[in-house]
């Protein structure tokens, strides 16, 4: 209470400075925006200049508006002012970290981190010690001491960790880097914007501008959301828009991209169908092979259709990806449906089996694919060995002479894609089982009891109750599994050598995207592939959604 008179002197001063500061900010932002556009950044691509000057112009306008609002003591001015200063403060902090090479320095931390890792273990032990008191029923005093001990262990462990990873020299390096013009400017920015934030954020200023609780909620809300939202805009929404832009350019990641309109999409969709007069007729007789390559042909008797495309690999990839999804989704969903029903029968050991089925889905796809690569080995692999044993058993049982096929799983173009499908189905089945199980446990038991009273058998109950009641879960499982299947990449990349497989039999959409974008560096084209893939996925999801809605309408 006694500080009130003092605050009353300070607050009007702060407000007066704030109005001037907002004016200055507006002028500076506008000046930088104009310089950037006029030619201050000769090397930057157009989209960067546009973005930068757009942001700065908006900031300048808002800042001027805020200055006017603050001058008439309107609280809206405070909110805008805080938002602008906050963004500028974050920007200068990022600049400080960048100039101090903190982001790049993570690499150096990778070198020493291994030494510090055991000491992080001490921190974790300390954490467990300090959290033990919530579970212990002992007297208050001993709990307190346990908590204290845990805290000290944590601090001790963390200091040792910092020492081991060479924090001291890291900090010294950071400070050394800051002592250059860019660093000093950024630090100055942090200080100025920080001071502005403090001046506007303090309680007396808020009171002087007649802030309400709802205003505090607005500020808190955006403040709490801001780390997430900024990251989301920079690393998700922004790139998504950029991707759309790139798909209309010939971007190669390093040179300035040129706008080429729909050329990328036109190339992808440039296809020809031609009728064949004989099944063995060559592609060059019916299409212009300077532009088109044969993708496939459909032959019925003496008549046939040839399918040719300007980009044959895209269509092969689409074919393979759809084939993959067509088999991998049912193979991982149907067994999961069966297993979840078995697991739901309340037998002992259900949780054990559930955990075992779940295991494949948490293992790294790369590691799993390596393991399967050796299981698939044609001469020493277990899969062919089991097939051999099975055939021998069969032959002995029925006195037959079935020949052991000795399948060349990954090097035969007929089986290569199927080998990938098996791995994917094996890996996602357990996850789907757990999802189905959850859906099953939500079905009220009374339904089954009523059905039993009506004399329904187990099979009737499954068709009449389980399946319809499980429809939402099924929809979810099928949709997510399909979306995942359409993006198959890692299994193919590891299992196949080369990843396209024998005769392009395992080239998939994402693999082709990777090859176009990061091996041939046709990144504009790769972006177009990404958008086509997205449309395909979106279409499949929409179809499933429609079917789901139709079936639920039908039920009700």
């Amino acid at each position: 209470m006694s500080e009130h008179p003092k605050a009353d002197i300070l607050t009007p001063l702060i407000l007066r400075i704030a109005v001037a500061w907002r004016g200055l900010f507006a002028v500076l932002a506008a000046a930088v925006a104009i310089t950037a556009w006029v030619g201050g950044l000769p090397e930057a691509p157009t989209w960067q200049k546009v973005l930068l000057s757009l942001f700065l112009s908006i900031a300048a306008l808002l800042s001027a508006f805020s200055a006017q609002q603050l001058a008439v003591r309107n609280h809206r001015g405070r909110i805008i002012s805080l938002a602008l200063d906050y963004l500028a403060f974050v920007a200068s902090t990022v600049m400080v970290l960048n100039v101090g090479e903190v982001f790049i320095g993570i690499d150096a931390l990778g070198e020493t981190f291994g030494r510090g890792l055991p000491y992080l273990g001490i921190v974790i032990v300390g954490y467990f010690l300090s959290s033990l008191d919530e579970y212990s029923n002992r007297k208050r005093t001993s709990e307190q001491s346990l908590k204290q001990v845990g805290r000290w262990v944590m601090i001790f462990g963390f200091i040792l960790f910092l020492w081991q990873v060479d924090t001291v020299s890291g900090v010294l390096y950071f400070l050394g880097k800051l002592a250059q013009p860019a660093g000093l400017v950024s630090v100055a920015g942090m200080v100025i914007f920080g001071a502005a934030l403090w001046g506007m954020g303090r309680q007396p200023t808020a009171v002087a501008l007649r802030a309400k609780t709802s205003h505090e909620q607005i500020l808190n809300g955006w403040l709490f959301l801001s780390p997430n939202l900024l990251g989301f805009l920079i690393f998700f929404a922004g790139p998504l828009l950029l991707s759309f832009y790139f798909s209309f350019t010939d971007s190669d990641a390093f040179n300035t991209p040129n706008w080429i309109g729909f050329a990328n999409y036109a190339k992808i969709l440039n296809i020809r169908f031609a009728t064949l007069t004989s099944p063995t007729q060559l592609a060059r007789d019916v299409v212009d092979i300077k532009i088109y390559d044969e993708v496939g042909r459909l032959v019925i008797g003496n008549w046939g259709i040839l399918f040719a495309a300007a980009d044959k690999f895209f269509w092969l990839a689409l074919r393979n990806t759809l084939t993959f999804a067509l088999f991998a989704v049912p193979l991982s969903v149907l067994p999961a449906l069966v297993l979840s029903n078995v697991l739901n029968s309340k037998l002992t050991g259900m949780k054990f089996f559930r955990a075992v089925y779940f295991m494949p889905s948490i293992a790294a796809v790369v590691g799993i694919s390596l393991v399967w690569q050796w299981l698939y080995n044609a001469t020493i692999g277990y899969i062919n060995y089991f097939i051999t044993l099975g055939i021998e058993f069969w032959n002995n049982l029925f006195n037959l002479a079935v020949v052991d096929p000795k399948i060349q799983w990954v090097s035969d173009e007929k089986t290569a894609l199927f080998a990938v499908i098996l791995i994917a189905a094996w890996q996602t089945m357990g996850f789907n089982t757990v999802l189905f199980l959850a859906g099953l446990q939500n079905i009220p038991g009374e339904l089954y009891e009523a059905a039993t009273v009506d004399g329904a058998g187990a099979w009737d109950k499954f068709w009449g109750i389980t399946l319809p009641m499980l429809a939402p879960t099924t929809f979810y499982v099928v949709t997510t599994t399909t979306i995942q299947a359409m993006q198959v990449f890692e299994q193919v990349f590891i299992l196949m050598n080369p990843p396209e497989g024998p005769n392009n039999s395992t080239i998939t959409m994402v693999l082709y995207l990777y090859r176009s974008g990061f091996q041939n560096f046709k990144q504009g084209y790769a972006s177009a592939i990404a958008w086509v893939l997205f449309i395909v996925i979106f279409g499949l999801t929409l179809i499933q959604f429609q079917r789901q809605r139709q079936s639920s309408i039908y039920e009700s």
Partner: protein
Amino acid sequence: MKIQSYRLVRFLNNFFLYLILTFFALVMIFPFLYMLTTSFKTPADTFRYPPRMMPRNAVTTTVAGYDEPLPLYYVDVDGQQKQYALAKSNIKVGTYAPASDLTSTVERYLTEVKPTGGATNQQKVEVNGKQEKLFDVTVDGQVIPMILISQTTVGEFVDPQAPETKVYRNVRLSEPVESLGGHPENYTEVIELNNMARALTNTALVTILVVLGQLLTSVVGGYAFARLKFPGRDTVFVFYLGTVMIPFVMLIVPLYQLMVLIGWTDRLAALIIPWIFSAYGTFLMRQHFITFPKEIEEAALIDGASRLQILRQILIPASVPALATQATFTFLYAWNSFFWPLVIINVGNEKNHVLTLALNVLRGRASDTPNLILAGAAIAIVPPLIVFIFGQRFFVESVASSGVKG
């Protein structure tokens, strides 16, 4: 009588169900077992056919008169199977017979037999219309010219108790004496061969930072969505929801260009910073916080607590299971991710490799030693499995309740 038949039916029914469950459990667990056991084998052991599950060691024994311990083999001696030590291998033996009687064969070392008439002017004889070279073979002290019918390589096996007893058998057809036993040194070998130690620490570093960062941003963001009213909140939330279904591959090209722009290609920062902001994680946290009773919070607000204090002292301690679940998911995602590291970290820049990238390199580097490759795979796969076994109960529970797709 009736009750008994009911019991029988139930027993058969359960038996059948357990049969299905066990079959699938074996299918699920077999590749893991194969990976672990193979990673402890010797290279020769991995290439054996028919394949065997358990790793084995060749049994060796010291025999008087030999410096090094010799491997033991099962050898047929006078119709009895005995364990003899292999003293010498790659001994060339020829089967010889006189041209007049091809069925009366004798066996001699190639080195003991000289060409008839000297090496420069070797005599020949016609057998079945073909010219065959003649050799001087000593039989019972007599030198008889014979022709070489066939030639094999054998090993010299000695009785460990009586080293003077020697027999000669084909080594490849003899079965070695083996005992169960692993080779854990495969792991140190693969770590040295492929910089796996560095990849492991890099992966741990990346994973820890991504998990911590993502928890932090998701918790505060989720709290804002769940509890604070501000204009634009619902619009942003719908926006977040709309992007949850967008596949990551959509972003890979522009994100790569962004990394080129800020100079993070080939840097660990590129594997960390973009991944600590997750729309999905925020969504899940919001769903969790929204179930939390509002009254406690309102009481704290009246007591003058700030929003941050409420979050730190009331909400977070009460949300440990939800946080742990999300941490586990993020852990798995960060630990197992491959596509983005493949794009952003150069193959040659091995000091910034994460485990999945190291495995990709190892695949080419150790293609003839499956034991090493699978040891590498185990290094990448086992830590998440350990996390899973510890957190298994509520982890699986929460998948079941929230329907998260990993």
